[in-house]
């Protein structure tokens, strides 16, 4: 009986052994093998379908703020004080006609509005109404060159080590009809904490793709040369670039 108990407890502790074994494998060849799931997920799910649309009644009363701190630079404080009068959204890179869009110009373009769910990678969700310009309209206005593969969003927020937030989408994701440069949240201009004046909204992917405080959109052929080379602030810290799952 003692042997049975020993074997039973040894087998049960197999679950507990997973943690130290898994941790010890960090940086090993096996650990690198784990990344094969991302291309599989990307191939399986891709960028198809439309995010679920919710009724007005589903809007979250309290939308969490979970990002880098709201920018505190002199430039951003000045933007807020002047209602973003001097703010320009620069769109350049592999485009035919690089341009700088004022808020007035963005607002004068056709506006889309959608009540969608924001899915944080942490596990929580929140629902809000987002209105603004379709990213595909902006890309259409500047015209993509043949070498264009990715759309990169340079943002105004910085972490405590002064690293700049950025994100990227491929052209399928960028031209998705629900991918917006949101100017309004729940019927009012986006509050500073939620990314004023322009926040990317990608409701078919996890929340870290929906970059706040977008200042420059750069169209590129490869992500390897920008920042940490993985295509996003969180991606450079190990999160998957494909954020549909």
């Amino acid at each position, binding site marked *: 009986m003692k042997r049975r108990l020993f074997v039973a407890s040894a087998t049960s502790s197999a679950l507990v052994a997973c943690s130290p074994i898994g941790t010890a494998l960090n940086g090993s060849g096996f650990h690198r093998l784990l990344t094969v*799931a991302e291309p599989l997920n990307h191939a399986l*799910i891709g960028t198809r379908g439309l995010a679920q649309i919710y009724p007005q009644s589903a809007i979250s*009363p309290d939308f969490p703020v979970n990002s880098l701190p709201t920018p505190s630079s002199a430039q951003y404080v000045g933007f807020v004080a002047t209602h973003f009068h001097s703010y320009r959204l620069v769109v350049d890179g592999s485009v035919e006609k690089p341009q700088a869009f004022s808020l007035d110009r963005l607002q004068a373009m056709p506006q889309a509005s959608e009540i969608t769910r924001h899915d944080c990678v942490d596990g929580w*969700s929140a*629902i809000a109404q987002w209105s603004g310009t379709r990213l595909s309209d902006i890309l259409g206005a500047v015209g993509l060159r043949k070498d264009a593969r990715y759309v990169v969003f340079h943002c105004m927020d910085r972490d405590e080590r002064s690293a700049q937030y950025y994100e990227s989408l491929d052209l399928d994701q960028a031209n998705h009809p629900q991918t917006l440069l949101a100017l309004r949240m729940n019927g009012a201009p986006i509050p500073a904490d939620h990314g004023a004046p322009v926040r990317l909204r990608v409701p078919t992917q996890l929340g870290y793709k929906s970059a706040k405080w977008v200042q420059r959109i750069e169209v590129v052929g490869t992500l390897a040369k920008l920042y940490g080379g993985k295509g996003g602030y969180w991606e450079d810290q190990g999160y998957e670039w494909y954020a549909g799952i």
Partner: protein
Amino acid sequence: MLDGVELCRRIYKYALATRISHWLWVLAFGALVSSGMQIFNATSHLDASDASDPAHRVLSIDSPVDGLGTATLFGHTFATTGWLGWTTDGIGGYAARAFPSWITIPAYQDLADGRRWHFFFGWAAVIAWLIWLISSARKRNLKEIILRPSDLPKLWPMQAYYLKLRKEPPPYGLYNPLQKASYTAVLFGLAPLMVLTGLAMSPGINAIAHPLTWLFGGRQFVRLWHFTGMILLIGFWLIHVFQVATQGIVNQLTSMITGWYRPEENQIVPGKTT
């Protein structure tokens, strides 16, 4: 039906594909539970509401103040310091962390890495399931393991035997009626439920298959079902390991490695013998 000569015979019970799948599941189950707890730690509560209404909070694991860990289930709060809420952080200290470092992969808080482990072993578990299903279907072995209506009257006699309320178990085939019930529930109920709820949590899948997420009641409900499924699977696993350890552990483990199994006296089994 069984005479003395047959008592020491052995039968080829587990096909190679079944054995490979079984041990892949052992690996995948450990990695999925551990990395799943790592993922849970990033938002350590479960809501029965997509609006994240605290009034509909089912489970919440918190640290109200440093040094104190609590778990609140259906509004009832328990002090769980050291086990849940305030736990080892995997880098030498304690922190406000739902599940402790000795059960999460990696030990320290790293959501990105936990997700990588989870998705890899999610695929591994699905592939192992498909290998087992296709192989068993081709060999016509599924009928041995799936619970049938004719097994239902034998469920209680089998349980009574385990509880020592009855001297003899009822006659059965390769698997006893309780094994059939639990294996059928896990392989065709819980396992698909875990995959479907895992997928339904993802915004990309939600965009492709709205009814899937709707069916489970929304993304936060999906999270709740996924977690509940894990608890049920851990329950199955505990009973399974206990049974293996107490019902002839050498015979059980040997058979899941070599395939050859020495049947119980009351088992009516066809097939090859040694």
